[in-house]
């Protein structure tokens, strides 16, 4: 059993930034566990600058960032252990780990989870049809290309139209695969210009508002059937690329019975990124799907700093206040506020997402008083940031209320990306 002061699970941008910040704020022994052979997380194979990639004809430059993070962490005195896969979280701060040598244990004063997010699988999307080879996510595609020089298909249908979907198009084109079409099940594409020019420029047809009705293929994908404007169309292809629709990688929390934020799919956290179990913290895309590597890094830094200060205080007791919200608000992070703890240096804003494109008034009510409100149009693909009012840590009741505008005339967009 190893006994660091701080144990960080996950070596992506959020985890490394948290480790660096904790060390900088005076935390003693900081150990970072990463199950892959290198640090960097999704940035090792994934990038969101597709035009730069198109010009370079390469998608791997994220790996250089991982190497830099690793060097920074080691230089800051963080004990970095790669190839270490956490298999169980104990409520008492003990953690079980498997590594090449077998099973080991850690007992830390505080644990920070930064396990990131992944794209929804075929099963979670409830896609119909056969289950042949050739159905992969962008993450699997880009890791296959970047780490193994392997291409899982030549003529995929791309499902999804987020930023990452367009990154997937670039990955395909740069390696000799030719996407057959881009299909979006929502009413409209989720990325915006200039990214969305890419399919048109490269001659890839795009359809929105589709419903996948069948995946056909006995051993490998042979065709995708979908409904579009009341008609069934069939696309011959040799793969289906599932893009976007990220979900937090929260399996360890689910299995250890920790409190889940049902809106985000990640852990419930308070204004310091602290989980319902006060020995645990969380940061990065584990908290919600999904922000950039840069955002995750800044978030990890703030939570790592808060965690280091927390080491010098007794573990908070008492009930946290749950942040309420109405439909069509999909998620609020943080969704807890612990009494008596000022937000700084943790979160200074609530992060919200909407389930659908709508207009109306969003209001933050604290102890029955409206402390913030805004009317406008709210889109599901955009993050909404609401500053935490001064004194929020003394509130007994916190809720986001939404009144939908009966008249959906044009209104300015206040949400921020």
């Amino acid at each position, binding site marked *: 059993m190893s006994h660091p002061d701080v144990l960080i699970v996950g070596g992506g941008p959020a985890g490394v930034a948290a480790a660096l910040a904790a060390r900088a704020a005076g935390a003693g022994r900081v150990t970072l566990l990463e*199950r892959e*052979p290198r640090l960097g997380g999704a940035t090792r194979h994934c990038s969101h600058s597709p035009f730069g990639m198109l010009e370079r004809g*390469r998608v*791997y430059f994220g*790996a*250089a960032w991982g190497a830099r993070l690793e060097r920074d962490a080691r230089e800051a005195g963080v004990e970095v252990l790669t*190839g270490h*896969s956490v*298999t169980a979280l104990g409520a008492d701060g003990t953690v079980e780990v*498997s590594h*090449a*040598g*077998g*099973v080991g244990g850690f007992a830390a004063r505080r644990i920070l989870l930064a396990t990131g997010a*992944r*794209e929804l*699988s*075929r*099963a*979670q999307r*409830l*896609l*119909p*049809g*056969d*289950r*042949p*080879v050739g159905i*992969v*996510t962008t*993450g*699997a595609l880009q*890791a*296959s*290309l*970047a*780490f*193994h*020089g*392997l*291409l*899982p298909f030549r003529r995929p249908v791309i499902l999804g139209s987020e930023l990452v979907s367009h990154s997937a198009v670039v990955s395909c084109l740069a*390696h*000799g695969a030719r996407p057959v079409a881009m299909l979006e099940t929502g009413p409209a594409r989720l990325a915006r210009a200039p990214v969305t020019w890419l399919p048109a420029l490269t001659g890839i047809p795009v359809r929105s508002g589709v419903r996948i009705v*069948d*995946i056909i293929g*006995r*051993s*490998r994908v042979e065709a995708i059937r979908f409904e579009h404007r009341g008609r069934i169309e069939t696309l011959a292809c040799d793969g289906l690329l599932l893009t976007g629709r990220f*979900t937090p*990688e929260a*399996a360890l929390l*689910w*299995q250890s*019975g920790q409190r*889940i934020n*049902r809106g985000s*799919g990640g852990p419930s956290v308070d204004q310091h990124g602290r989980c319902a179990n006060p020995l645990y913290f969380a940061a990065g895309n584990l908290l919600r799907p999904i922000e950039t590597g840069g955002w995750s890094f800044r978030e990890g830094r703030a939570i790592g700093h808060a965690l280091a200060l927390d080491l010098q205080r007794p573990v908070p007791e008492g009930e946290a206040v749950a942040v309420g919200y109405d439909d069509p608000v999909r998620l609020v992070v943080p969704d807890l506020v612990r009494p008596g703890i000022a937000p700084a240096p943790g979160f200074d804003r609530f992060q919200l997402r909407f389930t659908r494109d709508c207009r109306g008034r969003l209001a933050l009510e604290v102890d029955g008083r409206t402390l913030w409100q805004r009317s406008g149009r709210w889109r599901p693909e955009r993050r909404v940031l609401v500053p935490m009012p001064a004194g929020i840590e003394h509130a007994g009741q916190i809720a986001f209320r939404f009144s939908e505008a009966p008249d959906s005339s044009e209104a300015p967009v206040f949400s921020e990306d």
Partner: protein
Amino acid sequence: MTSATSAQFDIAIVGAGVVGCATARSFARAGARVVLIERGADILSGASKANSAILHTGFDAPPGSLELELVRAGREEYLRIHRDLGLTFVPTGALVCAWSAAEAARLDAIAAQGRQNGIGDLALLDAAAARRRMPGLAATLEAAIEVPGEYVIDPWSAPLAYVTEALALGATVMRGCELLSGRFDGDWTLQTSRGAIRAGTVVNAAGLFGDAVATRLGLTPDFAIRPRKGQFVVLDKAAARHVPVIVLPVPSETTKGIVICPTAFGNVLVGPTAEEQDERERATVDAGTLSMLQAHGGRLVPGLRGIPITATYAGLRPGSDRKHYRVSATAERRAITLGGIRSTGLSAALGLAAHAVRLHAGFGGAPRPAPGAVPRVAVPNLTETQPRDWQRPDHGEIVCHCELVTRREIEAALDSPLPPGDFGGLRRRTRAGMGRCQGFYCMGRLANLTRGRLAEPLAESLAVGEEPSS
């Protein structure tokens, strides 16, 4: 002991599902020279790849039926041999749950049938007692029958172990080998997609194609396969704490109904549906049914609500135009048919295998001596109730993080006596890619580790000059 023939093989078994694999083992143990032929790229390519993984007691089988006799015999043999083969079982027990007064009124009759079937330890429970056994059951529960002997097993490692033992005893397994026709002239000549095979006796264990194979053998089939599709939803391992017991419904006249069942791998599955279809090749899932199954699970066990889905799948049960097994032997043609094994094949397989050996003895002929010593064969444990490889030193690394599959396990499967023929076979042998991310993290590694080893490769190598720089 089995009879001798001058042909190349004593026994040709058509179909490497769980019944074919068990039958290969039993005949090989009896000293027969066995060939097992399978149309698919791997064993368990048909009905046996998708089931609910329950080792049944037979409490609800038709009294006096061959199915009851063989389920009981198969189960007893499994419990006798499992440890030697590296297999295990999870003694979950089952609760037959009545969710309405009408269903509750039928429990007495079900319990009486179970006792008549020789299952003495089942007990009628009121709702409170049933919820003490499984606190997660919804408040709408009326009453239940506890059947302590219903267990959960690994449905793929068991047949793999049977066929591996047959291989160790000298059996031949031919995959990608479709039976085209058969002619009997005292011995059988089987024409297959991989050439002719001579065998003394043929055993039809072709599952979904049982009637078609009978026709190709020139035997007039006395049954017609009526495929019945079952869709399943597999819930994340977080669901396991809510479902320690198999939750069975009160069965209807036509189906055992939708089960909520812990798996030996630590998940919970909800299914199967019972959808009649003519199609035998395709078992597709559909979104509406999968949502229904997910909602059904949450209604009966409220703790399952919101728990993420790990996998979805569909299988076809090789039912026939009658409810019972269609088992027959034709001595003058030296042919045995193990057909219409609708939904209890996993439990009854070893019983069916022993039954086939007995039927064959009735054909007469000079017996072959049984092999002196049966080689020791054990398959790797994949269940969560026994130690896994990731808990042992020097496993190399974990490749599939969701299911904690090590590189050593994958390499061992690829180098085993019966390496996986396709990705499905690798998944069933190791659980790699079976977990919640369904390959998001590990597909590239798996594609790399399986280069050149699978009938349908996971990926192709980039051309020279296209390789990554990192």
